[in-house]
């Protein structure tokens, strides 16, 4: 697992208070991990802080799963 993936999963686990084994790449924040719309905004803000990047609203809307977040942030880092 990449360093970025590990950091993303850590944020998701901490923020949503879910079991680590549920936080797989295909997990949808809202449908699978019980997030509400406010949680998704908070997650995006937490990613921005952790990775020192800006995630514009239109990009944030495309980040629906753990995998979406990892690939978005990996692309940013590349």
């Amino acid at each position, binding site marked *: 697992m990449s360093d970025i993936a590990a950091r993303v999963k850590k944020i998701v686990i901490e923020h949503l208070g879910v079991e680590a084994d549920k936080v797989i790449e295909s997990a949808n924040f809202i449908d699978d991990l019980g997030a*509400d719309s*406010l949680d998704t905004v*908070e997650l995006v*803000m937490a990613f921005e802080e952790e990775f020192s990047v800006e995630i514009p609203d239109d990009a944030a809307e495309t980040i629906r799963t753990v995998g979406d977040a990892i690939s978005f942030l990996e692309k940013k880092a590349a």
Partner: protein
Amino acid sequence: MFDLTGKTALVTGATGGIGGAVARALHAQGATVAVSGTRKEVLDAFAAELGSRVHVIPANLADKDSVEALVPAAEAAMGSLDILVNNAGVTRDGLFMRMKDEDWDLVLRVNLEAAFRLARAAVKGMMKRRSGRIISITSVVGTTGNPGQGNYAASKAGLVGMSKSLAAEVASRGITVNCIAPGFIATAMTDVLNDKQREGILGNVPAGRLGTPEEIAAAAVYLASEEASYVTGQTLHVNGGMAMI
């Protein structure tokens, strides 16, 4: 009841009558307070009087950059921000037909836009901590309207709509967002009234007197407290009965 020990608060307009009383009351309940205004020497004297648990952070709320820097500075000074009191306010009265653009702009900028920027900044940390209080000082005229105060009434009504919307968004996170609407309170803002105006006003106040800043501060202490945690999106009218709404 209403103990605020360990809480941190930012009060804008703390150089004024109501803001000073609010800061003093929150401090008396045990909170650490950051006091803001444009007049630094007044803030310094106020801080000297309070002694401990007080931070002076001057800011001009008509200036966007100065507003944006205020909450981060308060968080840096106090470690967090639990209670934001948007109290600073200005009037630039004039009949609607002749109201100047700059008078409209200044009142909306200081009274409403600054409150928006401060609340937006403060709510981030509050979301993380799953608790917070945002209190805005509006006015009875935001509800009733008042000839000569189209700009001011718009700014105060705007605060109410803004607060209700934010309250709905963050209620599930232990954050409450409320307004306090004073009637006529004895401060610099009402000192400018002449005797005739004062008499006219008092004729409409069943309590038969102006209110005191301390009577507004008591409402702020209540809304800031744990005890008020189920009260959100509300406006608490403190006006001696002049408008029962």
